[in-house]
């Protein structure tokens, strides 16, 4: 039983990150904090994906000069890389939008800078 705990640990961490992120996204009014929440959620999902592909004691999945033993799964790593790149773009776009909002309203509190109602 004991040897399973280190393997499960990344999944628990991912779930924890996602939980914290949802708390931030729903309850924080500062737009920068909201963006940080999304970044944390993204890290949680990425951690989950990488942990999926991990095999205990595995090697890097490179086929030239391959050593003995199991390899870790390459596909989740590729997915994670793609997702990191996409998230960088999304976060950058969100930050530029917050800069614009700040210029227009002088505030980044979601309640105070709100113009659209009803």
């Amino acid at each position: 039983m004991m040897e399973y705990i280190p393997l499960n640990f990344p999944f628990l961490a991912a779930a924890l990150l996602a939980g914290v992120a949802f708390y931030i996204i729903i309850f924080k009014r500062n737009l920068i904090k909201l963006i940080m929440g999304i970044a944390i959620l993204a890290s949680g999902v990425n951690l989950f994906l990488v942990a999926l592909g991990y095999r205990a004691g595995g090697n890097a999945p490179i086929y030239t000069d391959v050593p003995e033993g199991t390899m870790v799964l390459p596909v989740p790593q590729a997915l994670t890389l793609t997702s990191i790149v996409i998230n960088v773009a999304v976060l950058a776009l969100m930050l530029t939008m917050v800069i614009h909002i700040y210029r227009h309203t002088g505030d980044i509190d979601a309640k105070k800078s709100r113009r659209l109602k009803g």
Partner: protein
Amino acid sequence: MALPLVAAFAIPLISRAGPRVRNTFSLVIFSLIAFLVAILAVDIHTVGIHVYTFGATLPELALPGGYTVPVRIMFEVDGMSIFMGLIITTVTLAALIYSLHFLKGQTGQARFYSLMMLLYAGMMGLAFTGDMFNMFVFLEIASIAGAGLAAYRTNMADAVEGGFKYIVISAVSALLVLFAIGILYAQYNVLSIAALAHYMQYTTLDMMALGLLAGAFTMKLAGVPLHMWAPDTYTVAPAGTTPMILAASYTCMYALYRVTFTMYGGLINTTAIGWVVIIVGVLSMFVGVMMAVHQTDIKRMMAYHAISQGGYMLLGVGVGLAVLADPVALANYGRDAINGGIFHIINHVFYKALLFMTAEAIFFRIGTRDTNKMGGLARNMKWTAAFYIIGALAISGIPPLNGFASKLLIYESVLKFNPVLSVIAMFVSLVTLASFAKVFYSAFTGPEMPAYKEVREVPKSMIIGMGILAACVIFFGIFPGLIVDTIVAPATEALINQTPYINAVMGAVP
């Protein structure tokens, strides 16, 4: 498919040669794309499902020799995908023509066209992909481009706010989708939708993944508990892009159907899931229309109606889903209900795009969206007024326009399923008519207002853009049977019967 992507990145280069060259280039390249999509549509309806595998020696070779799982990225196009493809292409064409004049005098036009092409590429990819992870990638492409377009008028504070809401919602829902993809991959080690459907066991983890996917896509299509972003984003997006963001929402609806029908089709308790979809649909219908009635901002009112009309689509398909397991009921009214729900997507996108465009035409000329400040506009903007009437009658389900055709299908089939739902649907339709009539009277009729004496009709390209959509609305209304038989029925068939979709990829695997 690659063409819009290439065009998106080529446009900033080409626009260095001057705005006229750029406009012509965008139009020509997009007409070419539309032509290719039309050819593909004819081909799919005569031959069947197309599979295109990237990097394989033969495009049809989904399974490499000796493998029992598809390892390559592929596109898989069936009746439902091409149906969405046709909608997206028509709307984008109209939006592109409309924008040619609308953007005159604004800065950053080259980037506007680039983003438009990117959004188009994202939506088409979402509709055509046969692979869960690419679904996520295209979802993100469409979200980023959509948010960029929504916040295009950065000189207005509310525009940035609408765009920001859209990107936050998109980012969260895309991450949920990715999480669900991770769960599915952990169990089956495949990403292709067909292969997933083939191996699906429907364990507890699969249920979790379904919940995540359904929640994420409902958020993106503005189903009622999660609809707050839609009015803001639709209101502030510049004309031409509002219809495209609308189309992007319904592409997410397509993704929801693809997941529930194709991936989980044979295994889930369809009655329960169907009822969930029905409840979300009825709530959207009701809340959307009630919020719309008291709006004074013309685009905001239309945006709430968009939520309400989305409810009709969910209602139709939900009824179909609820009786999917019961062959008698399915043949009796289930198939008609799904037909109605799907037909309503294309109808709604066309007339709502038309309405948004007329609203922007008014904004373009008089600079306000507040209906209380308008009046007597029909005197000077005859075309706009005519297009508005067509759109408003279509959305209220007045014959012989297209809204009537699809709503009738929904009413009839839902009446057989549960009369109460049908009554609610008709009531919502009446309220819709009332609120559009109110706006018509305050904006277009009445005495000529001195402030708007000099208002002129909008430029030709905007009229042509609206004209294309108005022509579609009338054509679909006069020949609903033709449209249902040629493009809607194959889409319904593709949803109900998921075996051909799976076999197109997994056919060789026992």
